[in-house]
């Protein structure tokens, strides 16, 4: 599905070059469930952002579904990730001023999906996530677990091929975290490729491919079956 080749990313601090990512080579197959692990500051989130095309890189090649991401223009890149990638954040990042329904609907607005179709799609996912009753509530009226559920629903609404999750359970208690992980596993079985960043060994174990990062380099990469 995607392939990173010799990815370097750095920032210049004075005359010193600080590497955020160093010589990253990574291939993720369609249908994989990848967990990225590593201590704070090891470059997990940066790598995820690079994969999600939110962040650029200084050197290397990135191919996504056969397209050379590093050669695309901003607009084409936006179109590419808008269609194929969904994001889930540790802090949920729901829009406080919008209801649950409206939050979930937002990505469809940006993809110019027609009104009736939008309605159907949102209704479908509300139903699937069992949050129909909450559709008119605002984020502040939900618990953390429920907010994250909405965040995931929003990430999935446009039926992306790849789901990127940055510590999706970081702000949740363990029971809520487990439920989210169960959900990810379920989604993965249904065909969604998932890449998650996590601190927790336990959550990492839900995946079938664990990548350990240290100081911006891949320390360990193992595919489990």
């Amino acid at each position, binding site marked *: 599905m995607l392939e990173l080749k010799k990815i370097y990313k750095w920032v210049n601090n004075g005359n010193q070059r600080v590497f955020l990512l160093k010589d990253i080579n990574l291939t993720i197959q369609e249908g994989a469930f990848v967990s990225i692990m590593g201590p704070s500051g090891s470059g997990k989130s940066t790598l995820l952002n690079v994969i999600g095309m*939110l962040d650029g890189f200084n050197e290397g090649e990135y191919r996504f579904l056969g397209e050379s991401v590093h050669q695309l223009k901003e607009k084409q890149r936006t179109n590419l990730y808008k269609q194929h990638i969904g994001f889930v*954040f*540790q802090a949920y*990042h729901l*829009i406080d001023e919008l209801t649950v329904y409206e939050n979930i609907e937002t990505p469809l607005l*940006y993809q110019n999906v027609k009104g009736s179709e939008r309605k159907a799609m949102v209704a479908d996912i509300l139903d699937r996530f069992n949050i129909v009753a909450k559709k008119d509530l605002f984020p502040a009226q939900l618990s953390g677990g429920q907010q994250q559920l909405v965040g995931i629903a*929003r990430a999935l609404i446009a039926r992306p091929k790849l789901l990127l999750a940055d510590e999706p359970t970081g702000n949740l208690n363990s029971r809520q975290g487990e439920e989210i992980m169960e959900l990810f596993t379920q989604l993965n079985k249904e065909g969604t490729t998932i890449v998650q960043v996590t601190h927790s060994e336990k959550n990492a174990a839900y995946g079938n491919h664990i990548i350990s990062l240290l100081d911006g380099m891949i320390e360990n990469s193992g595919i489990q079956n």
Partner: protein
Amino acid sequence: MFRNYVKIAWRNILNSIGYSILNVTGLSIGMCVALLIGLWVHHQYSFDRFLPEYQSVYRVQRNFNSNGDTLTFPTTSLKLADALRTQIPEIQYVAESDWTRNHVLLVGTKKLSVNGATAGTDIFKILQHPFIKGNADAAFKNAYSIVLTQSLAKSLFGNEDAAINKTIRFDNAHNLTVTGIIKDVPSNATFSFDYIVPSSFVYATNPQIKTDGLSSFSNNNLQIFVKLKPGVSYEQVAPKIRNIEHTEKGNINAMNSYVILQRMDRWHLYSNYINGKDTAGFLSYVKMFSIIGLLVLIIACINFVNLTTARSDKRAKEVGVRKAVGSQKKHLIIQFLTESFLLTTAAFVFAFLFTLLLLPLFNTFTQSHISVPAGSFYFWLAVTGCLFLITLLAGGRPAFHLSSFNPVKVLKGFSPTGQSSFSRKLLVIIQFSCSVALIISTLIIYKQIQYAKNRPSGYSLNRLMTTNMNDDLQKNFTALKNELISKGIASSVTTATSPATDVWWHSDVDYWPGKNAGETIEMGTIQVSEDYFKTVGMKMFEGRDFSNAYDSTSVIFNETAIQRLRLKNPIGQKITWHEKNYTIAGVVKDALMVSPFKTADPTMFFCVAAPQGNLLYRLSANTETQHSIVQLTSIFNKYAPAYPYEYAFSDQQYATKFNLEQLTGKLAALFASLSVFISCLGLFGLAAYVAEQRRKEIGIRKVLGASVRQVWILLSKDFLLLVLISCLIAAPVSFYFLHKWLLNYDYRISIGFSVFVLSALLALLVTIVTVSFQSIKAAIANPVKSLRTE
């Protein structure tokens, strides 16, 4: 404690230096405008109030009943002055005066043409200008005397001590002795002059003037000042003087005149009489600009309120912590008010400097003489009072809003800003309603001026020049005329009792065919020499021009006059004027001699052989003006060596008729652009704040696939909506006031839809530009950065 407040306030100001600059800039511009207008308004109100006992000084006016319409004239007769002096015991002093004109004063080789008046002996007992040398009682004992102002004495004699009892050659004809020196007449005096010569001098040198003046109430060519006895009110005098002219039975003009008085402090502001009452005038402009000044200040204060409350979430945590450690609400209020007082004071310092810097410019702009009364205690008292008021006005709301935060909530990270966003929007709407209304007003005022300027004046003022007649020119008029024409300098030369751009004399037609019993029609009256119509370029509508200089039994009316007289076939009809019969020889097309905004005055022209007071001559085509003036100077100096050659171009005189409107237009444009600018400063700050506040949301939306354009629209549309609402409010409000303003003019534009659309588009465009800077900046920011902050 207070030091601590100041310190914290200072740090906060420095910390958010961008906002502080926006705040102070907006507020200081607002204050500067308010200060300038305040000084200007104060100056207008100070008119004629500087003399002792001004409250018992009056000017005589005549209400004239013209077929049911009451017209008010300030022109009066010597006979009226005499009647008031002898018949009304409540009146202490009466002094008649002419309307001031330039005379030539000669001292040694120094020859100056200066503006002065001839006035009755008691003039300085009524207008009690302080004497530096001499006194009001003794000044005019001798007819051949003159009282100078301090600065004229200086320029004629070097200093005022040298001037007293010296001799001045007056108009190259008589010697006058300087009997008094008064302080200069201040710029806020309605009746302004550089010297006064007693009327007794005029009567001594030309006794006929006195005989004529005393013979009839209709010989109205003077103004009269009176002072009432102490303790006498106008109400006591009014009934006695009202019908004082009615003793002259058989004089229709006098029988229809009602004498009234206008108190000195109303001369300047209540200059217009409507239906015989001084209800209007310059005051309406003074009021209008007071309101505009206040509006600009309020717009600036709104900026302050909006920017401060908008940033309150930045301060929320501080409030929470302070409350948690025991601060009471009142401490916080004092703290925030201290902060706003500091900013207000800073803004005032800048405003004061701007004002000092701009005052000369403002003075030329408004043709006034305003200065900052920096030495006046009351000025500083007023300024301090205003500073406290503005502090409360601008800082009060934010102070109470911020200090009311619940500490537990704000410390938990609750953002309290949402609550005030409605009132913030309301304030923005108020700001932009005012700004848009000012834009609309500016456009309409300019359209009205342009409309009147493009109006055909009915005659030709291009290359037409005027010179005041003097004794020497009068004697040599025929020679002068011949020389000007034979040398090809002027194509045509004439004289008249009025200049080309005004009518100085109004009188009644005593009889005309079809006149109703008791009917009176007051008409502009101009006595002219040969070639008048040719010189000023008026075309005959029907009939003929005066046949020659001695065509003294013919009269020519303009079209409006014929309509008033209701004459169907005017040519050849007989009328009576001043007890003499005239035949209507012709009708001339209307010319806008008085006002380009009104219909032409009904006017009649009589031909006289003797040259009149205004010399009118048109420069020949294809001559260079500068060269012509050199030639004119030498010719005029030849025929009138004692007088400096002075001239005016009639088209420039005509242009001064637009002065008040043009001033209004310029000031409205200035204040409109300033208020738009201040509003935009506020909007700029708000847009920055909103972009900052919605940073996270923008990040999320971008991650979800929103394009730069979509985010830009998202952030800008709220502001555009507010401005659009403002336009909808401003349009009917400004329509109401401008429609009322336009009713002042007979010749006016109709307010079209396009002005409102244009103003709205302008406001929206300015808004888009202002807001876009911030919203595009927010839209192109990398979402990763904004989301990482969590």
